[in-house]
């Protein structure tokens, strides 16, 4: 009890120094937590991948189309349970330079897409309305909230990949099955896209962006991938089939340099936390050399001295760490609000909390190591001679 009281009193001896140290740790932990959240948000798509879904795309590039006629052939493969397709639309909504106006817009097969993606949660009525109106669309809760979309609203946008003015009627607002599901997408009927393209650019009609396969047995995935790709190996558009996780991973790996940089910066921040704390604790321990010598003279053991120095270090680290962690949440929420579609899933993950707490505790322990060791090595007689 006395040790705790003395730790607290020692920590409050130089209030400004203590405050600045805690503030330094707090800012560093916030930055660490925020950067880790960005890193986890970047790979959120990989994490939410289904273990029974596979993607078949053009073997040259994701942006090259595949004939819609492939669907029937893929469906004949024994282990394929169901096949759907989708097509990236793009488009420009309002001011394209505003991040808020950028959200994924895709043409999908209204009859099968939601069977394969049960993560989109919407009412039966909404789904039925969507299926029966050619230019109907479904939007995610987040973008509906962001742009004030309501059922029946007309959403107009200019096409870029598919030129022209496009009008969509909102017939459903979906929710994700849980917080890990992206609620910023807009989905509309592939037929609407195909009909317009057939009129305007007939050579582009009848194509889809990629196929989504649901397999019956997860273990059959390698065989399915092989069979699908062999099926179209001599076609004008060869395919590449992979698991949904691998497909998502390929997107993440395109940004691997950025992610690696962010990870490196987050580790540098750990070093900064350590230096801030180590500096304070080393200064404090040096100033109190004589006091520690007096305690040792009075019979206090090395354990008491270690407790005093490490305790103060841990106290500052924990306070700074806790404050930093608490701040990470509103800052991350603010960032997510500012760029709602840039990172559709932007949550402070449990692993980030665990890492931030561990980093603070580790910094507290390491920062105390050298001052403690130096204090224990100092002979009482030498310590008593020290002028603080």
């Amino acid at each position, binding site marked *: 009890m006395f040790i705790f009281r*003395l730790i607290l009193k020692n920590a409050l001896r130089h209030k400004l120094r203590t405050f600045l140290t805690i503030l330094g740790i707090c800012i560093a932990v916030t930055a660490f937590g925020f950067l880790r959240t960005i890193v986890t948000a970047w790979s959120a798509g990989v994490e939410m991948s289904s273990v029974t879904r596979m993607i078949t795309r053009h073997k040259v590039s994701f942006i090259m189309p595949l004939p819609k006629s492939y669907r029937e052939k893929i469906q004949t493969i024994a282990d394929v349970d169901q096949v759907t397709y989708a097509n990236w639309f793009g488009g420009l909504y309002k001011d394209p330079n505003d991040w808020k106006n950028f959200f994924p817009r895709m043409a999908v097969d209204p009859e099968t897409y939601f069977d394969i993606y049960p993560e989109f949660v919407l009412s039966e009525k909404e789904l039925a309305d969507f299926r029966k109106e050619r230019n109907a669309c479904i939007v995610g809760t987040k973008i509906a909230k962001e742009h004030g979309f309501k059922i029946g609203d007309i959403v107009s946008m200019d096409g870029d990949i598919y030129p022209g003015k496009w009008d969509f009627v909102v017939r459903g607002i979906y929710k994700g099955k849980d917080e890990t599901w992206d609620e910023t997408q807009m989905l509309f009927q592939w037929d609407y896209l195909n009909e317009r393209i057939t009129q305007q650019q007939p050579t582009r009609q009848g194509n889809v962006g990629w196929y989504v396969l649901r397999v019956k047995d997860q273990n059959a995935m390698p065989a399915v991938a092989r069979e699908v790709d062999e099926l179209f190996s001599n076609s004008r558009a060869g395919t590449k089939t992979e698991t949904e996780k691998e497909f998502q991973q390929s997107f993440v790996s395109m940004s691997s340099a950025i992610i690696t940089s962010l990870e490196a910066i987050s580790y540098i921040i750990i070093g900064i936390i350590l230096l801030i704390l180590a500096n304070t604790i080393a200064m404090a321990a040096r100033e109190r050399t004589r006091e520690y010598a007096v305690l040792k*003279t009075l*019979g206090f053991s*090395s354990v008491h001295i270690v407790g005093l120095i490490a305790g103060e270090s841990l106290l500052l680290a924990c306070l700074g760490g806790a404050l930093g962690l608490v701040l990470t949440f509103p800052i991350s929420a603010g960032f997510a609000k500012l760029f709602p579609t840039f990172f559709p899933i932007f949550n402070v993950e449990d692993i980030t909390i665990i890492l931030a707490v561990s980093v603070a505790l580790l910094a507290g322990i390491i920062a105390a190591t050298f001052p403690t060791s130096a204090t224990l090595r100092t002979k009482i*007689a030498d310590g008593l001679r020290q002028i603080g």
Partner: protein
Amino acid sequence: MAGNGFVQVDKVSKSYQRDAIKVEVLTNISLTVPEGEFLALMGPSGSGKTTLLNLIAGIDRPDQGSVVVNKVDIDGLGESALAKWRANNVGFIFQFYNLMPVLTAYENVELPLLLTRLSKKEKMEHVETALKLVGLADRIHHYPRQLSGGQEQRVAIARALVTDPALIVADEPTGDLDKVSAEEIMTLLERLNKEFKKTIVMVTHDPRAAEKAHKVMHLDKGELTKG
């Protein structure tokens, strides 16, 4: 052996390494302090007075020779046992008081008792008695910065005697005090010796302080002579 005293220092030598230079501080020193003695050690700066005091108090170890206090060869004790021995047997008074600045007078005096198994109530009684004895019962919740030098030294004396040690070592207890305060402190030490039968070994430069001791010894160039 120098005799059967309460403190027996026998053929003790001590040197320090200062960078590349080895400084011989004490060479073959022997000293006997009987129980209940009030001994003053005098000598010029650097003569080894404080080093000898540190050896007697068990906060330093001799290179050669032995130090026996109350029949305990303290050189034979390990670090932990020596720390316990100091806590139970020796009261320390320093020139610059060495109080913990963040603790009140009460908490400073209580410090040595935290290593005992006394109950909270017993600790409180001991602390209050010790502070009353040094005349500071009304300054119990004052911090060192709120006390005068003389008062701080009295708190230090209360801390030294709160565990009722048989031996009190004082290193220049009046060195940082004015004449009046120094006189008060010496009267207090004299009282501890006479009334409470404490064996006191005191290092001092002050001849007036030394006058209060039963015996004065001079240490110069490693040689100990009776004053």
